[in-house]
Every structure is written in structure tokens, then in C-alpha cells.
């Protein structure tokens, strides 16, 4: 369960986000939708404690991301935008490294790593060094790595970037599995079809503010557009630009 309340963050003169509030519940997939530069990544980065908000609060399962960042990080699995791997380690070693850093006991690490490898179907290249992996392979390994400690909350920043059709399909499948397992999945995207296909809730962000927060059908109704893309465009136009 992720709760965001009135977040503000500026980088010098640029006001990246101006009062973002929303809630992402367990067992649901929440999509953060918005044009480039709307503040999606900034919001997510505050949630996974890489950035600190200027004001406002955010909690992961009730744990404050500023007050107890370490505990908050323990409750999330993260796929930051453009995640990289260690090229001289194999996929399995990359995943095991994160498992060890998450303080899992050595006896269960091997089994747990194998579980995520099976879950993401990466057995074929699990024991190859990750140097020269395709974008799809890298994303899968990064995902496996972020799930290895079985986090309750999963935050994915544009996970489908650079993936081909097959890889995108298996990513969707994985997100559905996580949802079925009662996890809270929050991901950002600017691809409409993806969000429409997956999300139970959509948070549309524009100019650093929440333009709309509802189910896909709710958004269609509120904007009076049958097409979600039209609805999206209409929604973001309701936000006045930041100076």
C-alpha cells in the first residue's frame, strides 16, 4: 500500500511536482500516466527514497519514506528508469547480489534466486555474463533482481521502454501475477494501450499535478470520451501550466 500526500519537489527554478496525492492499494495495479516531464519519475524517485520531497509525505505500508527510509526501502522492489546490470557478473550473480544485500539468509538465497529466474523465464541466459544482453533480457534480469526479496510493493518506472512485443507481453503477464498475489504494483508509462490493458486505477499527471485519478472506466465517463487517449489529452489540458 503506497500513500502519497501533497508532494512538492523543485530542482532549482524548475518545479517538478506541485502537490501530488494518490493512493495505490494492495492487490491492484496503479498506473502513473503523463506526458514527458510531467513529474512521474520524480514522484517515483521520492517513493523509493532517492530524492527527498520539499514538502508533503509519502508512506509505504504506513512507513514514512523520509523518516525511516531504510525500512521503507525494505518494503519495495524497484525498477528505476534505465536500470543497469553488472556486465562482468552472470544474470544469476546479479540477482544473488541483491538478495545478499537484502540480508536474506545464505541457505535460502539460491532457492529464492532460482524461483525468480523461473518466474521471469530467464533460465536460458541465467548463467551468462550480462555483457551484451538485449534490452529485453536486461529488463527481465533487473525485474528479477528487484523481486528477489519478495517485496509487498513494486515500483516500476517505464518498465516497457525498449521492449519488443513478446517481452512486453511477458511483462504484462508478470504484473498480473503480482497483482493476483496481492501485491501493490505502481508503474509509470506514457503508453496508453499498456495502461489501459493493465491498470485498475490510473493517475494522470500533468505539469507536476494530478489531473485525474480514477478507474479507466471512471476516466472515460468523467471526460465523456470513449477513447482513453482522447480522455487523457482532455484530462491533461485541465491542469494550468506551472508559470
Amino acid at each position, binding site marked *: 500500500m503506497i500513500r502519497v500526500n501533497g508532494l512538492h519537489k523543485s530542482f532549482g527554478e524548475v518545479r517538478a511536482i506541485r502537490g501530488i496525492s494518490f493512493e495505490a492499494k494492495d492487490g491492484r495495479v496503479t498506473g502513473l500516466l503523463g506526458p514527458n516531464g510531467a513529474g512521474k519519475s520524480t514522484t517515483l524517485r521520492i517513493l*523509493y527514497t532517492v*530524492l527527498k520531497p520539499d514538502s508533503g509525505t509519502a508512506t509505504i505500508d504506513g512507513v514514512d519514506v523520509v523518516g525511516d527510509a531504510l525500512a521503507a526501502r525494505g518494503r519495495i522492489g524497484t525498477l*528505476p528508469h534505465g536500470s543497469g546490470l*553488472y556486465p*562482468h*557478473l552472470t544474470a544469476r550473480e546479479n540477482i544473488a*547480489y*541483491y538478495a545478499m544485500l*537484502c*540480508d536474506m539468509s545464505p541457505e535460502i538465497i539460491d532457492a529464492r534466486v532460482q524461483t525468480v529466474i523461473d518466474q521471469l523465464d530467464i533460465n536460458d541466459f541465467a548463467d551468462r555474463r550480462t555483457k551484451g544482453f538485449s534490452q529485453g533480457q536486461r529488463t527481465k534480469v533487473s525485474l528479477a533482481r528487484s523481486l528477489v526479496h519478495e517485496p509487498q510493493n513494486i515500483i516500476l518506472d517505464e518498465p516497457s521502454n525498449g521492449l519488443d512485443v513478446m517481452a512486453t507481453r511477458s511483462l504484462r503477464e508478470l504484473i498480473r501475477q503480482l497483482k493476483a498475489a496481492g501485491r501493490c504494483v505502481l508503474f509509470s508509462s506514457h503508453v496508453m494501450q499498456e495502461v489501459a490493458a493493465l491498470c485498475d486505477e490510473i493517475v494522470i499527471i500533468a505539469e507536476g499535478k494530478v489531473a485525474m485519478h480514477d478507474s479507466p472506466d471512471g476516466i472515460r465517463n468523467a471526460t465523456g470520451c470513449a477513447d482513453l487517449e482522447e480522455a487523457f489529452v482532455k484530462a491533461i489540458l485541465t491542469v494550468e501550466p506551472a508559470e
Partner: protein
Amino acid sequence: MKTIHTVFFKEITENFRDRRTLLTALLMGPLFGPILFAFVINLSVKQSLSNESEALDLPVIGQEHAPNLIAFLQSSNINIMDGPATRAAAIEAVTNGEHDVIIVIPDTFAQDLAALIPATVEVITDQANTQAERESRRARRALQAYNQELAALRLTIRGVSPQVMRPLNIDEVDVSTPSGRSAILLGMLSYFFIFALLTGGMNLAIDATAGERERGSLEPLLCLPVKRDHLIFGKIFAACLFMAISLSLSLTCFYFTLKFMPLVELGMTPNFGPLVVLTAFLLLVPFALVGASLMTMVASFTKSFKEAQTWVSVVLLAPTLPILIVSILMVRPTTALMFIPSLSQHLLLVGLIRNEPVNILHVVVSVGGTLLIGALLTWICARLYRREGLLG
């Protein structure tokens, strides 16, 4: 503790698989210095040794005017050769480097000598040519000796003791020991060792910070439920290990190259046995913490691997500065100087090679001071890693 341990071993494993890191850490750094050093020393030692014992080939113009002088020169290990035909040709031959030194005896020589007028002998040489300088000095020294012998003869004939001409007897007493003399030569070694130590950890220090950021693996790492301080400590310690490996290889390599260097023929017995190698390692290795944390600090300000490499190279040169200043000013080791990293290591190493008794206070201050500064720099690195701007 466990995080530091995990990060440390992951960095070690990864870098042992990276050919570039291995090449610089285990080959370039340790071997480059000693081999270059051995090569240069060997060359210059061989040259200075051979010159003194070998006969000097000396072209002389007008040999027929001074048969006695020629006989004297020949007896002082000089090989008299026929020179160019004229003085002008001789000057040209020296100018274009055909000969290093030519002696010209004018045809008035015998006449002047008989009339007790100072007889001119010309030594044609190029002062700007250092190679020729040594040869012309030898020729001049031989002429000087002949000059004194003739003067002594003239005095004796007139019933005056030649001692009259020597009111002073200058006697130089050299107290330098053979290992002391080698310290002059081996003093610059400390920089080679510090250089090897730093190059050993350079790639790792850059890779663990700027490299990790460039690859995009830093952000997910920082999302894990671990303290950032522990991540950076693990990385710095891993760089320290690589530096220590590089240093020990460099010392060992130098120990073996020294066996092939003709230092004994120069009257030097370098104090560089296995025990000295071990002591030198223990004296130098605390500098690894300073080097690793300094490089990590510099690299965390940069945006890319390339940029980091440029700046970190500056760190490679930084330890030369105190060493250079001290070498020029000929400073003797004091306790205060032992607080300066790289300088204290240099002074202790020079003392060690000189075979001077080890000053325990100096060692304690050097090791303690260096580790303290290293710890401070590590702490600054940890602070830097808490910044938001780290991810760029």
C-alpha cells in the same frame, strides 16, 4: 558489516573478471615502474663505468710539436689518434658531432716551452654536449697532470721543492655508506611504489562510482534496504585491496630487478632484502586508504567514466608534489612531516633503504596520521553519497 562484506566481495569478483582493471592493477602499475627504473639505471651505470676504464680515443693535431706530451697522454690511458688536417676542420668536426673533443698543439708549442712562455694547447669541445663534457674533462685532467709535472720539474731544477706550490692539502672524508649512496638513487623509488599502489585501485574506484552511475546500476542499488555508507565503505575497501595487491607485486618485482642492476660496481649496496620488502609494504600500505577514498571522492563528482578517468589521473600526480619539494629542499625527516601522507611514506622508505635505525615514533605517526586522513576522506565520501545530486 554484512553489507560491507557483500559489496567488497562483489567488487573484487567483478573486477577480477575485468581485463582492463586486471591489466592496470596487476601488470601496468607494478611492472612499469621497476622495469623502467631498472632499464634507465642500468644504461647510465654501464655508461659511466665503461668510460672510466676504457681508453679515451683522442684526436690530436700537431702531434709532432710535442712528442713528450703525447707520450705522457698515452701513458695515462689515452689513445692518440690523427685528427683532421687543420684547426678549422677540427672545429667543424666537433660542431657536427663527429668527434667529442680534439686537441690542437700549435707549431709554436716547443718554442714557447723552451722560452718558459706559457705554451698554448687548445681543447676543442662542445660544452652543450653532456656526453662530450665527460671526455673533455678527462683530456683536460690529463693535460693538467702534465702541466703540474713540468712545473715540478722546473722548480726542482732551480733547487726549489715542488711542495712550495702546494700550500694546502685538501682531503675530503666521505662518510656516506654504500647503502646511503644508493638511497640517493633509490629515493625516487617511493614514488614508483605509490604510483603502482594508486594505479592498482584506480579502475575499481572509478568503476564503483562513476562507472556504476553511467551504467545505470547505481540507482537500483540505492533503492535497496541498505545504508549508503556501507555501500561506499565496501567499495573503498575493495579498491584498497587492489591497491595492496598492486603494491606488493611492485615491491616483489623490484626486489628481483634489483638483482640485475650493477649497483655494487658503483659502490652502492642497496638495503633491499626480503625483510625490507616486507617492512616497506607495511609502511606504504596505509596510503591505500587515502588513495582509494581520494579517488572515490574525485570520481563521485564526475558525470561519466571518461571524465572520472581524467580527474583521477590528477590524483596519481598529487603524491609527487610533497616528495618533489622535499627532495629539492633536502629536508630531514621530522615528526611533524610524518603527518603528511605520501611524504611520510617516502621519508620512511628512504631511511629504510639507507639502513638507518627505524624511528618508532615516526612510524607510528606516519601510519596513524595516514590512516586518520584516510578515514576522514572515507567519511567525506560517505557524506557525498548521501547527496541527492549523486545520481545526476
